[in-house]
């Protein structure tokens, strides 16, 4: 093993240890509020009922929606619930805390730690109860599978998993890029609204939208492609264009968000700490 390889392996191990410590602290903190689990379950149940009511209403009026049948749209609702849960549990809370810290000047503390600042801001303050949504979303996908007209092949399942990971990565990198704006404008009070409206717009497969909205949900706010690509995979509707778009958007966003983060750090000048 060369020195470079060994140094890289050490960095990865260090990052994994930091992540594990933060997750453990977060879990201990959140477990103090066990009642929140039941509220979260109730909240998720309501949310799912809401999604199912809309699906039922839509399909009581029409047999298919731009080619999407009931079981396929149900699977899309499941994927949306999973990705939305990841956003609310793992992505939004830590990055919101980072934005608050930048506004107050408390971000200095993070920069003085002997670890990558992006890693540190991404692993703290996770809302573990929101992960209930991920589990419930997976259950919805499982329930939808028997209703899928063409069943699920091994290649569909493999593509689903790959694109779900790509969708989660898109979600994190998109939100990180947006959060970086705080280094330029100090306050982003619309971010919670943005999460609400953006996730709402992503709840249906982008294939049912008009062209301008479809392009917007792929390029400008790519959460649409993050949900649609795995949903299409599990419904055996995946085209190469959608799969390639999702992977390309994930790759570009990954590089762009890291570049933006490094530029943002250079811009930061803490007011106090």
């Amino acid at each position: 093993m060369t020195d470079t390889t060994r140094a890289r392996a050490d960095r990865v191990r260090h990052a994994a240890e930091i992540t594990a410590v933060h997750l453990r602290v977060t879990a201990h903190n959140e477990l103090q509020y066990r009642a929140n689990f039941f509220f979260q379950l109730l909240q998720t149940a309501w949310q799912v009922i809401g999604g199912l009511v809309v699906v039922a209403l839509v399909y009581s009026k029409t047999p298919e929606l731009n080619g999407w049948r009931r079981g396929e749209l149900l699977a899309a609702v499941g994927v949306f619930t999973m990705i939305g849960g990841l956003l609310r549990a793992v992505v939004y809370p830590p990055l919101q805390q980072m934005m608050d810290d930048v506004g107050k000047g408390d971000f200095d503390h993070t920069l003085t730690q002997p670890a990558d600042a992006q890693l540190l801001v991404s692993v703290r303050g996770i809302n573990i109860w929101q992960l209930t949504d991920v589990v419930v979303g997976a259950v919805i996908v499982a329930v939808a599978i028997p209703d899928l007209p063409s069943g699920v092949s091994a290649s569909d399942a493999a593509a689903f998993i790959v694109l779900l990971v790509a969708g989660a990565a898109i979600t994190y990198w998109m939100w990180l890029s947006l959060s970086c704006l705080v280094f330029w404008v100090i306050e982003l009070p619309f971010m919670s609204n943005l999460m609400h409206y953006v996730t709402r717009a992503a709840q249906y497969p982008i294939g049912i939208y008009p062209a301008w909205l479809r392009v917007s949900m792929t390029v400008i706010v790519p959460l649409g492609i993050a949900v649609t690509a795995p949903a299409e995979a599990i419904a055996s509707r995946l085209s190469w264009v959608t799969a390639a778009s999702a992977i390309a958007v994930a790759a570009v966003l990954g590089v762009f968000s890291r570049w933006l983060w490094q530029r943002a750090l250079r811009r930061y000048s803490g007011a106090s700490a």
Partner: protein
Amino acid sequence: MADVAAQTPRMPSAGRWRSLADVYVARSKTSIQLAVQYRFNLVVDLVLTTAEPIVYLAVWQLVANSSGGEVDGFTSGRFAAYYVTFGFVRLCMQSGSPGNWQHLVQRGDLSGYLLLPLHPVHIDMATWLGFCLARAVAWVPVGAILVVAYRPDFDTSVWQVAAFIASLVPALVMRTLINDIIGMTSFWFVSIVAIDGVMRIAENLLSGRIVPPDLLPGWAQTLSKALPFEWGFAFPIEALIGPISTAALLRGLAMQLLWVVVLWMLMRLVWRRGVRRYGAVSG
């Protein structure tokens, strides 16, 4: 602190209402100035609140087109009228998050409000009334674009326009009171995120935001008419887009006033009990 806080200092009786009106005018003006000062945030808010109904509109127009041009009496143009008006009403109905109360209680910042000679709810209402006015004006060009793009089918009379305008204020008051009541549960709970989440989803389902109430199944329509959400959101929209009878307009306005009274009394009850539990060492 709890004993002191249990009684909010009262305004002098003479000129009390005039003083209250002065507070509303001053706070509203401040909100308008803030909205104008932070124009970027105002524009983002406009774009976001417009995006939500556009998505619903795309879905329901698709359903209408694939089921012979209409769904339960809703044509493509009527869906457009509903969701274009939805954007305006949604923008006007934004009010303070219950999470603000959590911060006020946990950090002790509520202590400062307790020294003011008026209820904190008035401050909330006056603040959001100002933002509502600023956003309503800013929405006009957006609305014009939507009308040209989607050609909504309005069936509107002068009385309906008057009822629509009249219904916006009680609707905003209802939403602010609901948010404040949820926020005041911070006196009992360390985190109200989950309570707020449950209420928010009930609101989404039963207010006419996900789907016009007329398209809901019978049991859901009955439930939504028994709760305040529909009267505070879908009613103003239906009042404007029509067709609606004068009796239905008057009944809707009466229901709004009834809910304002009920929610106000509930808020007073929660406030009186909650503020006795409040104990802060700073603020």
